[in-house]
């Protein structure tokens, strides 16, 4: 990154913060609300597991560990990809025309003009809390190698989800409205990803591994550290693929974006 790009990134961030703090209490509440909203899902799991002990061999803390990866990656991703998530609106209200008129990279502008730090604190914060609760109790003996693996798994998980957002955002150029697709392929899949993938029937497993590969965001990385029995039905190599799939998907989505941008039709006045 050139220093002046870095400078612009900083100024974007400063302006976003300033805009948010125009409504100070709302800004803080936003982080809290996101945290609580997502935490309700966890509370449901908690009560379920109080009754059943385990889900397909996964106990409560292991489930929390699985969840923590989901929230950590989403928290980091949402800082950078909120602009892509809301890209449909940007296209419809004509703001995208303005990005085109400025001498900077389009993706760069979409990302940094819309970075949502507060939602990120909510999601990421929950991820950190769940990690702290579970990491001790799931019997992982942390060493340097595990830490490095964990870091790469998070980067890979962020990129996988980012690539899905970028792909869905690109579809907006053709369709103008894709929020139901996003609901179907992203947010529903993400709900499934809160459980071990082995729990589901074959078609959903195929979907989660090969189509919208959420299994690589949290299930396989958790398996590498936890080594549960249900891993035996999947090839061992899956434990290591997360960063590769992340980078691969992101590059593919990026080229799809680059290719599609010339078909952009401005929304008109």
């Amino acid at each position: 990154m050139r220093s002046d790009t870095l400078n612009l990134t900083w100024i974007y961030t400063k302006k976003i913060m300033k805009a948010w703090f125009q409504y100070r209490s709302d800004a803080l509440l936003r982080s809290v609300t996101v945290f609580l909203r997502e935490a309700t899902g966890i509370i449901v799991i908690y009560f379920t597991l109080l009754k059943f002990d385990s889900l397909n061999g996964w106990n409560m803390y292991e489930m929390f560990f699985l969840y923590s990866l989901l929230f950590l990656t989403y928290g980091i991703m949402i800082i950078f990809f909120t602009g892509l998530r809301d890209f449909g609106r940007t296209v419809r209200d004509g703001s995208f025309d303005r990005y085109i008129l400025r001498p900077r990279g389009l993706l760069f502008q979409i990302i940094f003009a819309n970075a949502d730090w507060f939602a990120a604190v909510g999601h990421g914060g929950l991820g950190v809390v769940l990690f702290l609760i579970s990491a001790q109790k799931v019997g992982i003996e942390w060493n340097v190698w595990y830490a490095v693996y964990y870091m790469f798994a998070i980067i890979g998980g962020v990129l996988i989800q980012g690539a899905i957002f970028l792909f869905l955002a690109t579809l907006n150029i053709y369709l103008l409205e894709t929020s139901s697709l996003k609901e179907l392929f992203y947010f529903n899949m993400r709900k499934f990803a809160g459980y071990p993938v082995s729990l589901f029937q074959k078609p959903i497993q195929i979907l989660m591994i090969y189509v919208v590969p959420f299994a690589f965001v949290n299930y396989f990385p958790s398996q590498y550290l936890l080594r549960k029995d249900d891993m035996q039905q999947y090839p061992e190599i899956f434990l290591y693929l997360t960063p590769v799939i992340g980078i691969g998907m992101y590059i593919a989505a990026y080229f799809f974006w680059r290719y599609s941008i010339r078909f952009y039709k401005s929304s008109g006045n």
Partner: protein
Amino acid sequence: MSLIEVSNISKSFKVNKRKSGVTGMLANLLVPKYEIRQAVKDISFSIEKGEMVGFIGPNGAGKSTTIKMLSGILYPDNGKICVGGKIPYKQRKEYVGNIGVVFGQKSQLQWDLPVIDSLELLKAIYRIPDEKYHKNLERFVEILDMGSFLHQPVRQLSLGQRMRADIVAALIHSPQIVFFDEPTIGVDVVGKETIRNFIRELNAEDEITMLFTTHDMQDIEKVCERLIVIDKGEKIYDGSLLGIREKYGTTRQLDVEFARMEQIAPIENVEIVELDALDGKKKRFVFENKKVAINDLMNYILQNYQVRDISISEPEIESIIRKIYNGEVVTV
């Protein structure tokens, strides 16, 4: 070679043809029907450096589409645009640093932040050096009288203030070419005058080339020397403001107030309109100045009737344009 060269550009859009009603909605979902709407048809023109060009036409004539192609937002389907040696839609990043665009309908300012914050962001985006930024800012703020609201959040500004701020935002990086898309829309008379003066001054002093779309003919009359009229995607006039009067504004009208009520016998090629239906003293004589010599007509009236007052007028540019839009004037 001119600064802006536009040759034979066309652009069409695929428009979803919607049927009404529930069955229509279902049919539309299953078998969408599209129709091709030609927004711009084979338009060519060139603009020299420092020119100030008014770009007018009725709603949906293709003005905004043309501006969007010129500014690099849209690709033309056919034809070529070259501005200062660059192709807008292909060399976007190198090109846009040199242009400014004001969309009167769509602000580029940060809604929740004071005006100055948006300008600071633009400073970073366009990599404007400190000295140039402060010089431009000081100058614009003074001419546009913005000192009072520079530190107010945009959401609290009046439409006229917001428009002035938007114009500064489009010019803060000293672009060589500026496109204005309805820059005075919704602004009151005083505000419009301030904006026009500013634009004129900038054009005169800095030799900035400007292209202007508007529905306000006053804007055109007070600001532009040259006019391009487009209708249904085609260029129908390109020339000076004076020229359009000479070419299409050939109607003259003679308003006469008579000393008493008169019945005027029909005159060949002259239309007589009653201006005051009650007492029949005021009448308007409308005629083509090519067909009727004004001297003859005036002599005829003065010799035959008692006249108290008489005045000749040319049609306003607005009514000429309206006639062109309505197809009353056959264009060549």
